[in-house]
C-alpha cells in the first residue's frame, strides 16, 4: 500500500540497544504510559506512531530522562541502555543525555552562532582539548547533519537566522556533536515543508549507519519511509510493535489496522 523501497526493509538484526521493562509514567494523576515493554535494536530506525496524546512522546522522553525536568512526572519500571538501568541512582541524567541525543519537534537553535550551536555540547562535556580539535568536531557534526556544504562559509552567523529545514538539520548536527549512541527525534519534521522533510528523512537513513534512531511521527507515510521497526501506541499502551513492513501490510491488532487505514486517530 505504500511505496516501500525494498532496500530499507531488510531489518538489521542488530543487538538490542534499549530495552524497556514494564514502564509506567504518570503526570500527576494522569496515567500516561501503561506497562510498556519493548526492545529497541541498535543501528535501526524505530518509529513510534499513534494518535495525539497516546504517550509516544512521553515514552521517548523517558529514554533520555527528559521527563525529569517536569516536576509532576514520575515513572515506574526500568529502561536498560546496553544492559544498564538508566534510572539507577548511579546514573547521572546529565551524562546520560550526552549518550542519548534528542531532536525536538520545533527547530530550537540557540541564539548563538552556528559554530557555537554545534560546539556547545562538546564544550560542556570537555570532549576536546583545543580549538583545532573543536573545529574538526564541528565540521564532522555538520557533515553528518548534511548541512556543512550550505553553512561552511557562514559559521559565525546566528543559528536563528536560518530557514526552518536548515535549523532542524543544525539541531541534528548539534545533537550528533556529543557523539551519542542513540538519537531520539520527537516529530522532527512537523514544522517543516515537504522538501525540508525529504532532506531530513534522507539524513535519518544515513544516521542509521552509526546510531540507533527513534523517531516519533504523526505521519504514517513517514514512518513507512524511514523506519525498519514500528511501534503503535494507543491510549498509553504499546499495542503492536513489529517490523515496519509487517505493521503496514499485515497488522495483527485490529486497533493498529484501524489506525493505519485511517478509521481512528
Amino acid at each position, binding site marked *: 500500500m505504500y511505496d516501500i523501497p525494498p532496500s530499507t526493509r531488510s531489518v538489521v538484526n542488530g543487538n538490542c540497544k534499549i530495552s524497556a521493562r514494564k514502564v509506567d509514567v504518570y503526570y500527576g494523576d494522569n496515567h500516561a504510559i501503561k506497562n510498556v515493554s519493548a526492545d529497541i535494536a541498535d543501528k535501526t530506525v524505530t518509529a513510534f506512531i499513534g494518535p495525539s496524546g497516546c504517550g509516544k512522546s512521553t515514552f521517548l522522553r523517558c529514554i533520555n530522562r*527528559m521527563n525529569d*525536568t517536569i516536576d509532576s512526572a514520575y515513572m515506574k519500571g526500568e529502561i536498560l541502555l546496553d544492559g544498564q538501568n538508566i534510572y539507577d541512582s548511579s546514573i547521572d541524567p*546529565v551524562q546520560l*543525555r550526552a549518550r542519548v541525543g534528542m531532536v525536538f519537534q*520545533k527547530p*530550537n537553535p540557540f541564539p548563538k552562532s552556528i559554530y557555537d550551536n554545534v560546539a*556547545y*555540547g562538546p564544550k560542556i562535556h570537555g570532549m576536546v582539548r583545543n580549538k583545532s580539535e573543536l573545529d574538526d568536531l564541528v565540521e564532522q557534526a555538520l557533515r553528518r547533519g548534511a548541512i556543512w556544504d550550505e553553512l561552511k562559509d557562514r559559521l559565525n552567523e546566528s543559528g*536563528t537566522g536560518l530557514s526552518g529545514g536548515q535549523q532542524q538539520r543544525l539541531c541534528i548536527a*548539534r545533537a550528533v556533536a556529543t557523539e551519542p549512541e542513540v538519537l531520539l527525534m520527537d516529530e522532527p519534521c512537523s514544522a517543516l515543508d515537504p522538501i525540508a522533510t525529504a532532506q531530513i528523512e534522507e539524513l535519518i537513513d544515513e544516521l542509521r549507519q552509526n546510531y540507533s534512531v527513534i523517531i516519533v511521527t504523526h505521519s504514517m507515510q513517514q514512518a513507512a519511509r524511514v523506519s525498519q521497526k514500528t511501534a503503535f501506541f494507543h491510549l498509553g499502551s504499546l499495542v503492536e510493535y513489529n517490523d515496519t513492513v509487517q505493521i503496514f501490510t499485515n497488522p495483527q491488532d485490529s486497533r493498529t489496522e484501524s489506525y493505519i487505514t485511517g478509521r481512528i486517530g
Partner: protein
Amino acid sequence: MPVLWLILIIIAITTVGFLLGCSRAQRSVNGNVRALHSLPSYYGINVGIWTAIPAFVILGLWLLIQPVLIESHIQQSVQSIATGKDVTFGLIMSDIRRVADGLELAITEGGMTLDEIQSNDLDIDTLLQTLNSLGVILGTNVSNSVLKSAQEYQKLSAGGNILMSITVLATMITGLGLALVKTNKNFRARISVEYGILAILFFAASIAIMTTIGILFSLAVNTLEFFKLYSAIDFFFGLEWAPSFSGRGGSSSLGVIPLLWGTLYISVIALLVAVPIGIYAAIYLSEYATPKVRAFTKPLLEILAGIPTIVYGLFALLTVGPMLVKVFGNNTVGWMDGGTAVITAGFVMGIMLIPFVSSLSDDIINAVPQTLRDGSYGLGATQSETIQQIVLPAALPGIVGAILLAASRAVGETMIVVLGAGAAARLSLNPFEAMTAVTAKIVSQLTGDSDFASPEVLVAFALGTTLFFLTLGLNVLALYVVRKYREQYE
C-alpha cells in the same frame, strides 16, 4: 454664565440629541430597524458626539486662551505703574487679579450692579466694606491705578465670558442641527462613531504627551532665566557648589559637577547592590523556585517596590547608617565619621532597586522559550550551565534594559539621598564621606523663602532640566538596547 452651568447645559442637550438621533433614525425607516445602516443607538451617539465634542473643545480652548489675552492687554497699562522690576510687576498683576475677582464677587453676591462696579468714581472703601461683609479681605493698600486696571480686567473677562457662552452654545446647536439633518437610513453612523471614538482615544493619548511637553516648557523658561543671570559654562563645568543666599551677600558658585558626581556615585553603588542581587533573585524565581514558592516569594519581593522612599530614607538614617559606622567607624578602621555617607545612601537605594531589577528580569527570563532550555538539557547540560550559557545570553538585552530603567530610578531618587547621604556637595572618591545629589539640592534650593529672581533659586530649574535629560537619555538608551538586541521568538 458660569462654566458649570454651561457644561450642564451641554450635557443635557447632548442627552436630548441622543434621543432625537435615535428616534429620527427610526422614523426615517418607519420603525423597520433592519432597513437602517446601523443600529439606532449609533445614530444617537453620532448626534451626541457632534453636539458635545466641538462645544467642549471650544470651551476648553477659550478657557485657556482668554486669561492669557486679557493679561497681556492689562500688562501694557501696568507697565506704567510698575517700577520695572520683575518682582513688583508680578505682585501688581496678582493684586489686579485679586481685586478683579473681588469685583466679580461684589456683583454676584454683594448686591452691586455692573454699572456701579464699572463707574469711574467707584470708591475703594465702599468696595472693601462690601467685600469684607462677604468675608473677602483684599488688604488695605489698593491703589487707584490698580483699581482702574482691575475694573478693566473685570470688564474684559465678563465680556469674554458672555461671548464664550454664546459661541459655545451656538457651536453646540450647529453640531446638533447638522448631525440631525444627516441622520437618515443611508447615513453610516457606525463608521462615523468609529471616528469619534478614535478622536477621543487620540485625545487621551495626546494629553500625556502634551503634559510632558508642558513640564519641559515650564522648566525651560526658568532655566533660560537662570542662564541669563549665571553663566552656563560656570554651571556645567563649575567644580564648586556653594550657593550664598542674597541675605548674606557675596556671590555664589553654582557648579553642577559635584552634584552630578554625587548622583552618579550613589547610583553606581546602588546598582552594584541591586543588579547582582536582583538578577540572582530573578534567576531563582524563574528557574529554580517551585510554583508554590514563587507564588509566595514574588509578591513579597515586589512589596519592596511599594515602600515609600521616605521610609527607606529613615531606614538609612536610623539603621543602616549607624550599622555601617559600627563596622567602619572610629572604633574599628576609622574610615567613617558619621552615618550619612554615599555608601549608606547607595546601599539603601540598592535595596530599593532590587525589585525593579528582579521583577522585570524575571519576566524576561520567563519569556525565553522553554524549547531552548529543552535543547540544552537534551545535550546533557546541567541547569546552571543552561542558565549561564543559553538563558541569560538570550535574556541579556532585556536585563540590560531593566538595569538601565533601575538606573534612571536611582538618578531621580531624592528622599534616600537627603536622609542617607547628607547635604554637603563634595567631589570626592571616598564612599564613606557625606555627599549629595542633584535631586536633594533641588529640594533645598526651593524650600524656604524663595525669591524667584535670584540665581540661587532659579538654579533648581537648571538642575531639574539637567536631571530630566539625564534620565531621558537613560530611558532612550534602555529602549534602544532592548529593541536592537531583542531576539525575535515566535
